[in-house]
């Protein structure tokens, strides 16, 4: 499964026409203990790099930008009562939502895992 990252520290895993979206382990660590995840409504249509969800930690409230354009097809309801799952497993079980991908070509604006790791070193 292909995995890509945005400069805003979201990740997306692509499987056919479905994208799974979350925040990177780096972002989860930087935010500190996450206390609330505001999940999108299923069916919501988002454009690439527009706000799809919001996340609150003890330090800050941050928007989560969608790495790709698409329609929200499912949300990780576990996070409603257990936002700490994002801290425990940001890039696996702490996923936020899935999208039906609108434009696969948008992947060109994202980074590979290796490129993202290099990008983190520049911050």
């Amino acid at each position: 499964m292909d995995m890509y990252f945005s400069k805003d520290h979201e990740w997306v895993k692509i499987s056919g026409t479905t994208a799974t979206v979350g925040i990177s382990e780096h972002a989860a660590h930087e935010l500190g203990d996450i206390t609330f995840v505001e999940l999108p409504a299923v069916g919501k249509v988002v454009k690439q790099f527009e706000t799809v969800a919001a996340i609150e930690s003890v330090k800050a409230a941050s928007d989560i930008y969608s790495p790709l354009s698409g329609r929200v097809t499912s949300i990780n309801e576990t996070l409603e009562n257990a936002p700490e799952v994002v801290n425990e497993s940001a890039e696996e079980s702490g996923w936020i939502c899935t999208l039906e991908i609108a434009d696969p070509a948008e992947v060109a604006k994202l980074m590979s895992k290796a490129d993202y790791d290099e990008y983190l070193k520049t911050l």
Partner: protein
Amino acid sequence: MKLIYEQSVPGRHGVRLPASDVPSATSLPAELCRSEAAGLPEMSELDVVRHFTRLSRRNFSVDTNFYPLGSCTMKYNSKGLENAAGLMADVHPMLPLLPGGEPLTQGCLAMLHDLGSSLAEITGMDEVTTQPLAGAHGEMTGMLLIAAYHREKGNKKKYVIVPDSSHGTNPASAAMVGYEIITIPTAPYGDMDMDAFKAALSDETAAIMMTCPNTLGLFNPHVKEICDLAHTKDALVYYDGANLNAIMGKVRPGDVGFDVIHVNLHKTFGTPHGSGGPGSGPVGVKKSLIPYLPSPRILKKDDGSFTIDRENGRSIGRTANFFGNFGVMAKAYAYILQQGREGLIRVSEQAVLNANYIMSRLKEYYDLPYDQLCMHECVFSASRQLQHDVHAIDIAKYLIDQGYHPPTVYFPLIVKEAIMIEPTETESKATLDAFIEVMIEAARLAETNPELLKNAPVTMPISRLDETKAAREQKVCCIG
């Protein structure tokens, strides 16, 4: 310490009422009569006085200690202002609105009108509404004015540009009014990235919202150019005046080209805030926006008397009950008169001097991401202390033990482990020096005894709270 309900003793009273010597009323409908006693604590007057006096001594306020909370301007609030407001406290807020009420409330109306005029003079605006109840309420009022302007002109506007060094309420206010937000990053010198701004500015830009000085405590040297560029697209420029304490009497935002401004009376103009106390966020505008100002407006007639104009034609309507938080305005008006023109200039000069003094003395011990002259506040980073696993929050908690209110931490978001210090003008050099020594000691402890910082505070009624647990497992209940 026991809750007031836990101190209740059955049958105890504050006053002993004499037996009734008139017949009981029988005409009250049964459904309006209480069938059981109200669940109030039963206490003597002295019990109550001691309870609240003890509580007040556990409170932290600028009346007891230094309170260098960045971005919040926690200046000392002169007691004389309380007295001034007290002189006007007995007027019923409905009175000026009742038939025949205007002649009975000329003093209050004059105060509201003159406060607006004074703020217009200070900010370089043409008219000010004092209705908004707080800063963010002022922002939303200002954005509604901008939306009304574009709507009436038939402008097709969609976006509001906000630098990432603005107050977090700016994008929220613009979104509340229905605009989409474009965030502009910060350039290496701490001001808005001008190339990114120019790329984002378009015919669909409704407004640019700037906090100036920004949340890094830096004055943007390009403000005039930004205003001029915005106006070429008929985009209006909003000035978030939360940091007005840095430039009052030095720069008038209206002269630079800003179209709308809100000021925080509870920050800049010496009125109390915090702990849910009332605020006030008057909004000033240029001529082009006057027709949309909230109604009712207070007008001065040719004979010098004041009247309430209820004309609602092009106005965005009422934004607050009555005329806003009147008591706050009375204190701010007294503050402006007390300081006078020279005094207000001295306030901002002293506030900026104090912040720069702290910055220059502490930058040897803490990282300073944007190392240049600051305005009324300075933003350090605890990244150097992070090497010893000491975070900004640990330094903040240590300061509590030393008798200081912590500075703002983790804001602005664009600075890692941010520590944002705003000393204000009301502190002496001796107070600043004592605070600086404690900050230097904290930096030393981060290297030599980080555990001490991580366990702070130890002198308070309660130790460090588990903020995560408090946020994740909220248990809010009412006893009684």
